[in-house]
């Protein structure tokens, strides 16, 4: 009972401490200066129709690099904690086969979902979506096949190759921006093209595709390590 009372006390303390944070949020009527600069200069400077994309990939590109690094470290942690012990006997316990309807449906749907994921990250500078969303959609396609074919295994060589290559090329394009354009991860190393078309916005589609492959393969890695039953 004393514990409950103490918890309540701590919670009330938190509410009083954090209340100014919430009560200071006023309903805004116009953009603040930084956002106004991004909205005003973004389309002409970077050529990307989706302003969220231009903020993520270029204006705050270094932050995104940090986030991808955090994602990599978390995946490595998951894989390390669930690593397969060499000495333990592999006992492939017999799992129940999934039904024929499910297998046929999966075989039909998985390529379509993959295609949808690729569409999302290629059109990240035109429509809502981008590398992170596309990566998540690809990961859910792999999850669908993992669920409906219980005996299936992810090919770790290909997965690791995609992971490392996309990360390395991401850094490489960033350094190229340092040479050929104004700074690290600048997208103007390629011509900007026509505003609103697929091949526009400089290097943004390339960078976002690499982010999408990176995020997708990391999430597939997490799901695969969680799915293995013999840890």
């Amino acid at each position, binding site marked *: 009972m004393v514990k409950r009372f103490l918890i309540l006390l701590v919670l009330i303390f938190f509410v009083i401490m954090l209340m100014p944070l919430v009560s200071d949020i006023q309903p805004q009527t116009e953009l603040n200066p930084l956002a106004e600069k991004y909205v005003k200069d973004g389309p002409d400077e970077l050529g990307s129709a989706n302003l969220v994309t231009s903020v993520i990939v270029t204006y705050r590109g270094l932050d995104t690099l940090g986030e991808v690094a955090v994602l990599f470290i978390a995946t490595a942690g998951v894989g390390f904690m669930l690593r397969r012990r060499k000495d333990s006997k592999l006992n492939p316990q017999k799992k*129940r086969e*999934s*039904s024929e*309807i*499910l297998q046929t*449906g999966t075989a*039909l*749907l998985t390529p379509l979902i993959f295609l949808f994921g690729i569409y999302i990250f290629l059109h990240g500078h035109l429509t809502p979506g981008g590398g992170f969303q596309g990566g998540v959609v690809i990961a859910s396609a792999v999850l669908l096949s993992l669920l*409906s074919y219980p005996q299936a295994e992810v090919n770790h060589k290909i997965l690791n190759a995609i992971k490392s290559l996309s990360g390395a090329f991401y850094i490489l394009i960033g350094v190229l921006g340092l040479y050929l354009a104004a700074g690290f991860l600048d997208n103007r190393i390629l011509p900007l093209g026509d505003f609103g078309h697929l091949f526009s916005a400089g290097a943004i589609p390339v960078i976002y595709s690499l982010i999408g492959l990176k995020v997708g393969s990391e999430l597939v890695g997490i799901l695969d390590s969680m799915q293995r039953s013999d840890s």
Partner: protein
Amino acid sequence: MAVFGGIVTLIGSVFLLLGALGIVRMPDVYNRMQAGTKATTLGTLLFLTGIAIGQIECMCIFRILILILFIIFTNPISSHALARAAHHIGIPLTDKSVTDALADDESEKEGAV
């Protein structure tokens, strides 16, 4: 055209309402899943068709066709997988049911092996 689309949409929403009613009224998991799948699939299809007819000038009919195709693929498959899993972990059928074809099928398969 708009009125006709509205009528189709209304019929679709009636099917959705019936599906929701079926989920409340049916006796066991499998019957509820039946109501929640068949009625809602038809209801959603009619709803989308109604939108396509009512907004015919926006040329979104191809997008709606793709949506309908995806719903036809995914909705029955997912509910099939759910019902099969529920049968596997042994959720009982209602007392009124007459036959259990999946159990017969599986016992036959085990007997053959």
